[in-house]
Each structure stands twice: as C-alpha cells, then as structure tokens.
C-alpha cells in the first residue's frame, strides 16, 4: 500500500513482556520493514506518557497507521484508539499485536518467543496497511420500555422508569402482580412483612399514569433493534387461541425480570415428598404461616420440626449452584415456628450455613440463642426420612450421618420442611428466544459481563434483573432492577445511541436472496427485503461476528474491519520467514 506511514510501538509491560521477549530485537527488525517510519519500545505503553508518545509521533511524523504490540486488545485496544483519535487520526487505522498473553506469558525460550513476537507484529503491520477509515453511526432512542415479569424486580424497574416520566409496558403472566414475593409471609433477616413491601409498590403501579399493566399476558414477538423495538403482547385471558387479542407496542429497551420457579422436591426420593404427608416444601409452609396455623396434616401442633437445607441445590445430581436465600429463610422459619409454639424443638439440617448478607450473621446467632439444633450433613450423603414406629413420640425419623460429630444419628420430626432451591423457569428459553439473549447450562440468563455488566446482555437494549439471572434475595433483585432502569434512563436522556462501526454489509448487487444468512445470524440482525428479494443487515444489531460473511455463497457480505484482504494479509504476515 502506498503512502502508508506506520508507527510501531513495542511495550515491555514492566517486565511482563521484556523478561522473555527481546523487545529491542523486535524493534530493530520492525524498523527495517517498508512503510514503517519508526519503531519504539517503552516500559508501559498504556500509561499517559506512552499514549502521548503515540499522539506526538502521529503529529510530528505524519503517521497514518499505528501498531501497538502489547497485551490483549480486550485490555487496551480502546485506550490506544483514543490516542489515535486525540491526534486527529481515524481510530480504526490501528492494530494491536498481543505479545503478552499469546507470547511472553506462555513461552520460556527467549529466542523462540522473540521470533514469535516478530511474526505477530509483522502480521499486524501487514494488516494495518489495509485498514480503512470507518465511522460509527447513531440511532434514535424510543423512551418507552417493556418490562417482562411483574415480581418485585419488574415492579421496581417499572416504577423507576415511569417516575422519570417515561411510558412503561409491564407484562405479567399471572392474574396478579407480586410474583414469588406474594407467596411469602415475612422476610429474613429483619422479619419485615412481604405484604407491606408489595402493597406500596402495587398501589403505586396501579395508579401510575405512565405504567400500562398487562395481566394474564405474554410477550410473543420482539423485532427491531436498540432504541427501536416493536413488541407484540398477547392477552391470554383463557380465551381460545384464535380469539386471543394482541397488542403491538413501540419501545426502546426491554427489562426481563421473569423470576424463578422452585425445585420440584419429589425428584429427591430420599425425602419422600408427596408420599409422606408431613414432608412439605418451604412455600407450603409459607402458605400455612399466612393462614395463621402451623400444623401437621392431621391437624396437630408439631412438637419436633426438622428443616432440611439445599433441596435441589449444591449437588452434582440436580443443581450445583447455591440458591442463596434458603439458609436465611430456614432461620426465619425456625424463628416463626418458635414464636408460634415455644415448646417446639427445631432441627436445622444443613450442608453449610451461608450467612453472607447484611444482618444475616446476627440472625444466625439469634437462631442459635433460641436453641435451634444445627446438624450438618455431607453434600452427597443426604438425610433419609422414614415413618417412625408407633411407640416413638414423633411422626418421622430422619437418618443422617452428622458430619461435625461423625455420628450416624436419627432426628425426631413431626413436620419436615424442605428448603427447595431456585430453578430457571421452564418457559425461560421461550423468552430468551424472543428477546434474543442466551442462557447458561442451568437456564439462567447470561449477563454481558458477570462483574462489570451484571444487568446488560449481549443484545443491546435488552436488560435482565432479579432471579431470572441467578438466585438472589430481595435487596439484590431490587438493586438489579434499579440498575437496569438507571442504564435505560441514561440512554433515554441522551436521546440517541452510538453504534460501533464494526458491522457487516450486504452488497446489494451481489446478493442472490438465498436467505442463508437470515437463519444463521445469532443476533437476528439480518432481515429480508421482500420487494428487492434481498437480505439486509440492521447495523445496530450486528456485532460483526462474521458468520454471515463466511456463509454467503455469493460472497456478497463484507465484514467491516474484517475484510478477506485484511485477514489474509495478516495470515500471510504470520507465516513469513523471519531471520534473526
């Protein structure tokens, strides 16, 4: 390529790179290459002086291409692109060679590592010569939001958005709002009434002008892209399918808060759930507590109550994860049962006591003070419940190898409460498909980054919050709902949204309209123009993954910034003979 003036920068990364790779040798090798105007080494390229060095060189030496050989582009590509921008150069005229993760960290031999580093840098130079100037674009942001699920997370997100003056469509499958929280009596550890928590939200939502509540409804379709979605909401109402009414709404963002369902306790045969009448689940106990009387099926007040933790959680057989809320809920039951019947003896059979949250450890201590008997069992050595003989003073006996004493014991019980864990809802794959987000092996929705983007997904404009992401308690669900609402409000306030320039384009002249790419696109970014009989890509949705580029039989699709020329030049560069 003519008129290319390339600057190459080789970072030592302290000693991370320099202790294995001979950076000076790499710089020497590079500086002799055609089009390379200068090659420098520096201790930390990502530091401010390092970036300023690049900016100054661009201005003084009229550089029009830059290569930085340093760490992974995941880490600092953004940093160096900014350096180019501040020098007035288009940010895409830049390439990064990863000589840390892919070279110095994984090799021991200096000579070989240096040769590999040279090859990587050379490949980057070959590629950057073919780079083009690209511009990112912006789209409009519709201020309406769709919230799927009317539990505590959904209601919180809806109120947060509506209070800021935006229209919210809240879709709930059941005939009432409240979700799983509406099935609970008190909340741990402060024993606040769940009803009180809900009533305030409910009355506000019902009277809010900006919130449109769709009960007994579900989202059946979502088209469009960030800022410009169209959702179809179908009203179920028990009518036959043909008569079902559906509504179409225009929205800019979606918050998915579809919640969890509880583990089916009958799957664990040891516990005899469904066979022994007085083995009940935590939600069945909640029902009893709300009815005001804790009793056995025979109507007796239980003298011994046993609570078994981790039912369906933390096992290889069912779910490996911890459901997070059951430990404190179990302690809450101990306290509620004890206050209803002070002479009752409560055994709490657990694997580990997870008391991680605010006030939880104190709550655990209070439970100990009230003489709850805590018994530990080994993860894969579950207790076994069987009926007691008539001469025993209890209904059932629970056999377990108690881990802390090392004794095989049996525990008397009149009522056994199974702390059923949380599971992804069976219909969650349906909503995942409609809004185009992914699920992990357990069915939970995947966030775009587990630490830094906990409520965003890989699909722009789709947010997730609450227990549909992973098991969590009320404060965490509420925090996530508010976080999602805050992210959306920031976008609404901006009015427009920037879209990365790395998307694919269809060359209309070459497209035969075979529609292969339509099916393959993992982001549903390709649509078909019936009039022209050609496919086109919604650039706002495209992530530039390149699946369509590879699949197109007519080579009609070009991946911007990942053209065939650029990639082949890079490959050629890698395999070039390098003599030291």
């Amino acid at each position, binding site marked *: 390529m003519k008129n290319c003036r390339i600057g190459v920068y080789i970072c030592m990364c302290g000693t991370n790179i320099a202790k294995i790779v001979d950076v000076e040798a790499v710089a020497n090798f590079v500086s002799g290459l055609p089009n390379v105007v200068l090659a420098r080494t520096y201790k930390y390229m990502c530091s401010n002086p390092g970036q300023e060095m690049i900016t100054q060189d661009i201005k003084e030496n009229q550089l029009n291409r830059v290569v930085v050989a340093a760490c992974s582009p995941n880490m600092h590509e953004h940093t160096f692109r900014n350096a180019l921008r501040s020098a007035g150069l288009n940010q895409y005229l830049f390439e990064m060679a990863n000589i840390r993760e892919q070279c110095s960290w994984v090799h021991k031999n200096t000579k070989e590592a240096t040769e590999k580093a040279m090859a990587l840098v050379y490949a980057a130079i070959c590629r950057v010569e073919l780079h083009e100037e690209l511009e990112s674009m912006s789209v409009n942001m519709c201020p309406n939001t769709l919230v799927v699920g009317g539990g505590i997370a959904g209601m919180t997100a809806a109120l947060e958005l509506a209070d800021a003056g935006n229209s919210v469509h809240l879709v709930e499958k059941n005939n009432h709002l409240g979700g799983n929280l509406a099935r609970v009596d008190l909340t741990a550890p402060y024993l606040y009434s769940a009803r009180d928590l809900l009533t305030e939200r409910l009355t506000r939502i019902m009277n809010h002008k900006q919130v449109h509540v769709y009960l007994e409804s579900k989202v059946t379709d979502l088209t469009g892209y960030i800022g410009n979605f169209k959702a179809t909401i179908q009203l179920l109402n028990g009518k036959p399918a043909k008569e079902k009414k559906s509504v179409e709404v225009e929205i800019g963002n979606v918050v998915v808060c579809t919640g969890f369902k509880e583990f089916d306790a009958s799957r664990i045969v040891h516990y005899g759930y469904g066979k022994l009448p007085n083995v009940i689940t935590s939600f069945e106990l909640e029902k009893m507590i709300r009815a005001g009387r804790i009793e056995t099926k025979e109507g007796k007040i239980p003298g011994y109550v046993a609570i078994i933790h981790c039912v369906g959680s933390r096992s290889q057989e069912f779910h490996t994860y911890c459901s997070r809320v059951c430990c404190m809920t179990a302690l809450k039951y101990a306290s509620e049962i004890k206050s209803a019947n002070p002479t009752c003896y409560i055994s709490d059979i657990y694997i580990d006591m997870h008391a991680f949250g605010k006030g939880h450890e104190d709550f655990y201590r209070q439970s100990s003070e009230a003489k709850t008997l805590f018994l530990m069992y080994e993860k894969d050595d579950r207790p076994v419940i069987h009926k007691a003989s008539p001469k025993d003073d209890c209904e059932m006996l629970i056999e377990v190898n108690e881990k802390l004493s090392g004794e*095989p014991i049996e525990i008397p019980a009149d009522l056994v409460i199974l702390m059923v864990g949380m599971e992804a809802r069976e219909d969650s794959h349906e909503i995942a498909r409609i809004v185009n987000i992914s699920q992990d092996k357990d069915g939970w929705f995947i966030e775009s980054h587990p630490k830094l983007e906990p409520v965003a997904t890989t699909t722009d404009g789709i947010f997730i919050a609450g227990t549909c992401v992973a098991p969590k308690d009320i404060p965490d669900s509420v925090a996530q709902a508010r976080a999602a609402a805050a992210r959306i409000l920031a976008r609404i306030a901006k009015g427009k949204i920037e879209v990365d320039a790395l998307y694919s384009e269809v060359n209309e002249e070459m497209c035969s309209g075979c529609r292969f790419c339509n099916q393959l696109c993992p982001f549903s970014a390709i649509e078909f123009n019936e009039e022209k009989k050609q496919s086109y890509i919604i650039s706002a949705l495209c992530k530039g993954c390149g699946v369509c580029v590879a699949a197109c039989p007519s080579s009609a699709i070009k991946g911007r910034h990942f053209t065939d020329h650029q990639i082949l030049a890079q490959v050629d560069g890698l395999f070039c003979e390098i003599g030291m």
Partner: protein
Amino acid sequence: MAIRVNPKFIDVLDRFGAEDVQLCYQCGDCSTICPHADDVYKFPRKSMRLLQMGLSQKIETTLEPWLCYYCGQCSEQCPREADPGETMMSLRRWLISRYDFTGIARQFFKSRLIEVLAVLIIALLTGIFLLYYGFSGGSIHIYDGEGAFLSSTFIHKFNLTVGAILAVFLVINAIRMWYLVMIKGTQFAVPWWLYLKELYQLPWHFFTQKRYSECEKKREHPFFMPWFIHLGLMLGYVTMLVLVMVFIEQLQSGPEIKWSVHIFGYLATIGLITGTIYFIRNRLKKNYVQYKKSHSTDWVFVILLFIIVLTGIAQHVFHRTGLFEWANITYVIHLMCVVPWLLRVPFSKWAHLIYRPLAMYLAAIRRAALALQEVVLDSYPVFIK
C-alpha cells in the same frame, strides 16, 4: 445403628451450668487452643457437639470432660461466646450425676434448695446426735481424756463409720465410671496387662496434678497459682482425712502439742485455709474466666469447707488455751459441717478427687490399647480436631 438425637438434653444441661452451649457453631478454635486436646481425645469441640445433639448415651462414656482442667483459654478464644470451658465444667457435673447410682447428685445439681436443705438436715441430725451422746456420757467442761464430752475413741468410731459410708458410695460410683467408659464406651479390645502397666498413673496424677500445671493459661497467674494452691488444698485435705481417720486419738489428746502428729495438722491447715480463701476470693472477684460463673454447688463446696477449716482451727485453739466449753461447742459445729460434707462427697464436685486420677488412668489405658491396634476411634471421619 443410628443414635437418636435428643433436643431436650440441652435444656437439662442448662441446669448443670451449660448455659451458652447452643451458641457453638463448631469452628474448632477451642480445640486448637486447648493444651490438652489431641487426636484421640477431641475436646472441647466434640464434647460440645455431642451435648448440643443430646447424645447423652455417648457422653456418659467419654472421658474428655475429665481431661479438661478449665484454664479458660477456650472460653476467651470462642468467637461466639459459647463458653466451652464452662460447658466442660457442666459436663463434669453431669457425669458425676451419671456415675452416681442413687440419683442424689442429680437432685443436688438441679436444685440449690434441695442441696442446701439436705446439708442442713444432716447437720442438724448430727448436732442432735452428738449433743445427746455428749450430755448422756460426758461433761461439756471436759474436752479430752476421762469423761470427755466427745471422747476420741467414740469420734474415731464415728469417723470410720461415716468414712465407710462415703467409701462404699465412692467405690460403687467409680466402678460405674469404669463400666461406662471401658465396657460400654470402648468398642475395641483392651488387654488386661495394660491396667497394670498404666497403674502408676493413678498415684502420679493424684499427688502431682501434673496436667493441671500444664494448662498454659494458668502459667500467667503468679507462681502457677491455681495449680499450686489447688495442690496444697488437695494435699492438706488428704492429710487431714488420714489424720482424723487414723490418728484422731493422738490429735485430740492434749493440752500439750504433739508435734509428731500436729505438725502435719498445721501444714494441712495452711494448705486448706489458703486454698479456700483463694478460691472464694476468685469466685467473688470473678477476675479469671474460669471463676466467672459459679454454680450453686461450687459455693456450697467452698463455703462448707471454709467453715470446717475455721471451726477446726477454733476448737484446736480453744482446747489448747483451756476454753474447753468453747472447744466442745466448736467441735460439735465442726462435726455438723464435716458429716454432711463427707456424706455429700460422692454426689458432688468433691468426687473429682477420685474421678480425675481415675480418668487419667483409664485414658492412658485406652490410648495404649488404641496404639496397639491402630484402631481409629471414630467410624466416621471428623475434619475438625
């Protein structure tokens, strides 16, 4: 065979002083810091666990409570203020009540009223009997020799009778302890010759209380105080017991002082008076963790002993100074305390005089037997010491 958990047991032990054991969450800090716990005898953690679960049939066969000398380091260390030291103490009380076949000890530990009433009734009966005997055959003005109010030959017979009653109860209880620990609680074979080989443990621990001195925390006290003073108290006690059981005639003759006998009496008195004052003072001041909580039986123990020592000294002094009436009166009071005290022995804390060295002896036998067979004590792995 699975053992039935008994959630009610923790309420029973509450009466014996284990008020905070429910707080224990089994971190094991207590066992780590304990200078006496090891791989074979795991305590206080495991003892606390068995207590929480109410496995009384298991606890009654364990020796661990006797291997603890309550230095209190565990209680200071405990992150949950579950007071392992006091728990071990209350387990000792409970074990005393378990070894006792009459059930009297249990009543004493459970009810302060019953204990105090029993002591008072026996004291009154003794007093009435002695006064009746004294007035019917002797004179209140004569202390020793012909016509004495309480002649030394009579007192000798009286003492031996009370001592025999005491011995019968103690021996039966000790046999019960042996049965529970070595037969019921030992699932592995113990060769008979180990009983001979380890026999030296009995006098060794009885007369030195070496393990008591090994409690590191105790070394913080000046001159190993609790161990030293406890040893003095115990040796004084035993010396005095031998004197009144065997040499009472020489002891009571007078008025000149018989140094060959009395020197032992004086030494024993020093040990007793120092010990009782020291322990009463600590229990009042609560300055060390092991004295923070005093069970009612602890108070009866030290106060009764203190009165016995004081009246003993008083009658000795009155006798030698010619105040025979006073000497006789204080003698009666002295015996009114001694008799309930001695009769209370098998049912009270005092029984540890026998149980502790016996426990040390049996523990050594069990340990040797285990080492011989390389048998793991527990059938299930326990991950925390």
